């Protein structure tokens, strides 16, 4: 194995010196940041847009309900016909015209009201107007029943049941999802890394085959050493690229936000709109604090340790399969039939993770997929933020999962090395699965 460092060094240098690799390393964060900035900027423009709505109010029921709000202001028309008001709104370039007819009964008035716009109206605007009408209607109906608004508000309260573990630890709503998202983030990172850099490993093997250097090299080193060196060298190049992406992307993002004066938290403002009406809930600050506390409680050191374990094992398993595929074919176009079965378990892991593990991190599906070696690196990481032991992932599951992963790792690397050894010396053939199976016996 004394030649392994030499191979790793060559593979690493060959990769990081490659022009397209260098370009992608520096261009990707710029593109990503440009995209984020563009989205943020567009959102800001969109938010900043003032809508003026013409209001032709013939009824007495609405007097001071239509107040100027952040995005909308109202221009009141009076003493003109509906048609004239419509023309006038259109000419002025207003967003639309809200017509409220006269009537004795508020229900009828509301029924008869119309919003006229050029195109189909924006849902934000509609929600706002709907809200105004709903509240006014409720007020009116309550009055008819003889209930005061304050009385009503005092009986209308939200309620959520408290949950706790047997130990008495309080659970917080949604924290499971947040934890799973953090784990999901790690899982997603693993998947992306496998797909991008596994492909690199495969192409590097194919390149050696098509340039016919392979026979020269394996008369000096063992095929297994070469394969391992390739995988490690390429992965290190990948880690380098990822690190550059994260650091430069982060810096660029900060710089860009400073230049364009964008507040990142404003991008979530859409979610808060729904909370405008209805009784008060704990303030956002309080909830945030609770969540923050809970996030600090997540055992990060443990999580990152296991991330590394699952990442390394999972990546090695998959990239050796990629290397075997690269060895089996003569050019990249022939790889398609083999690539899909590899990506399948990865996709499955992500989807199962998002649909099943989030809602039930310790359910049978989550347990099954976090034990199955081809999906465990992703699914187990989605479960781990919940902790280990009581209330989290039982220790036996974690141990079994890692053991299974190690056994599979050894088995797959062994099989892949066999296919690799035979495949790299086969030229001009597009192998079938049957042939690959035969190669295992050579």
């Amino acid at each position, binding site marked *: 194995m004394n*030649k392994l460092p*030499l*191979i790793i060094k*060559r593979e690493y240098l*060959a990769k990081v010196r*490659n022009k397209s690799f260098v370009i992608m390393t520096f261009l990707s964060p710029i593109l990503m940041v440009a995209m984020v900035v563009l989205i943020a900027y567009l959102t800001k423009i969109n938010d900043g847009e003032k809508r003026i709505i013409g209001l032709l109010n013939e009824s007495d029921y609405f007097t001071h309900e239509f107040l100027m709000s952040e995005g909308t202001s109202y221009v009141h028309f009076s003493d003109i016909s509906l048609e004239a008001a419509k023309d006038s709104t259109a000419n002025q370039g207003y967003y639309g015209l809200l017509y409220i007819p006269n009537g004795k009964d508020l229900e009828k008035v509301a029924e008869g009201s119309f919003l006229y716009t050029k195109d189909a109206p924006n849902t934000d605007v509609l929600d706002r107007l709907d809200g105004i009408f709903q509240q006014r209607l409720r007020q009116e109906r309550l009055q008819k029943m003889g209930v005061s608004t304050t009385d009503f508000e005092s009986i209308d309260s939200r309620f959520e049941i408290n949950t706790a573990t047997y130990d008495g630890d309080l659970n917080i709503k949604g924290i499971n999802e947040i934890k799973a998202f953090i784990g999901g983030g790690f899982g997603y990172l693993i998947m992306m890394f496998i797909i991008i850099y596994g492909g690199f490993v495969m192409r590097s093997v194919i*390149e*050696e085959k098509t*340039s*016919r*250097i392979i*026979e*020269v*090299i*394996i*008369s*000096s*080193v*063992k*095929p297994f050493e070469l394969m391992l060196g390739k995988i490690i060298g390429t992965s290190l190049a990948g880690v380098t690229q990822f690190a550059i992406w994260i650091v430069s992307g982060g810096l660029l993002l900060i710089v860009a936000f400073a230049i364009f004066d964008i507040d990142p938290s404003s991008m979530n403002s859409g979610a808060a709109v729904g909370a405008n009406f209805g009784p008060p809930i704990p303030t956002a600050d309080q909830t945030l604090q609770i969540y923050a506390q809970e996030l600090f409680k997540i055992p990060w050191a443990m999580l990152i340790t296991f991330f590394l374990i699952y990442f390394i094992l999972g990546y090695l398993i998959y990239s050796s399969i990629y290397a075997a595929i690269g060895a089996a074919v003569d050019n990249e176009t022939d790889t398609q039939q083999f690539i899909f079965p590899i990506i399948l378990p990865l996709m499955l892991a992500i989807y199962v993770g998002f649909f099943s593990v989030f809602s039930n991190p310790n359910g049978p599906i989550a347990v099954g997929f976090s034990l199955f070696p081809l999906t465990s690196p992703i699914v187990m990481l989605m479960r781990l933020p919940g902790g280990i032991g009581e209330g989290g992932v039982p220790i036996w599951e974690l141990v079994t999962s890692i053991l299974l992963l190690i056994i599979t790792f050894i088995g797959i690397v062994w099989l892949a090395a066999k296919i690799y050894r035979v495949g790299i*010396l086969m*030229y001009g053939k597009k192998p079938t699965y049957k042939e690959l199976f*035969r190669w295992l*016996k*050579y």
Partner: protein
Amino acid sequence: MNNILVTKEVTKRYGGHTALDKVSLEIPKNSIYGLLGPNGAGKTTLIRIINQITFPDQGEVYFDGELLKPQHIAMIGYLPEERGLYKSMKVGEQVLYLAQLKGLSKSEAQKRLKFWFERLEIGDWWNKKIQELSKGMAQKIQFIVTVLHEPKLLIFDEPFSGFDPINANIIKDEILRLKENGTSIIFSTHRMESVEELCEYIALIHRSEKILDGKLSDIKRAYKNNIYQVGLETDNGDMILKELADKFDISSSKYNIGEKQLDFTVQLPDSNSGSVLNYLSTKANINHFVETIPSASEIFIQTVQSKGIHE
């Protein structure tokens, strides 16, 4: 130990196909050994086994008296038929890398490379990328990579393919010089004229079996059929021909009366040509009396075809 490499009943199977069937060879030290055979005969499999790229199912290989071990790789230089280099890597870096894979230290590799680059007059290629070189130029680089670690045994698989005649000659001279310096060489080829020129020993592999091996001169002797080309100066050629034809098998005879020149080919029953020569000398002036030695190419074709018919 006079053999650098010995294989004993080496057998290799791929699935149901037998690539090598009990092949035993003895390759003497300090010689050029021609490994011949039609395409798909099993030559490449044998060479890969010697290089420990694949392993025999049965039989053993001995290198310099020892059972073949991974350490022997550093003592073998192999120029495969399917050869190439990393296209986007610079020449210098690449040869250094390959030399280090063979176990040379970086400084030692650099020293030796300098020598070889000067010798083959390619010093200014160091910083070029392989993709900028012609095929023949890349072949030269590969030749250097093969011999750089000064192996005891060199294996060349079709070393001259891709070379123009001038460069092929340069490489041929280098191969001969390496042999002079004590290296043993296995030379696998279809090109029979280079076999005649270079090889002292040959082995012929056909359909996974060794069907012939030994010293080339011995094989040729064994394959000669006592056929002689004869040229006589005589007035009565017709009579001589008639007398000879009664005793021997005469073919392609040609008598030019004006020039008094008689040429023919005669098949003698044994290698004792003296009596015939005596007889002829009393009848005519002998211009030439030459035994036909079969060429390596003829032996190759003859043996392969006869085997082909038998099976």
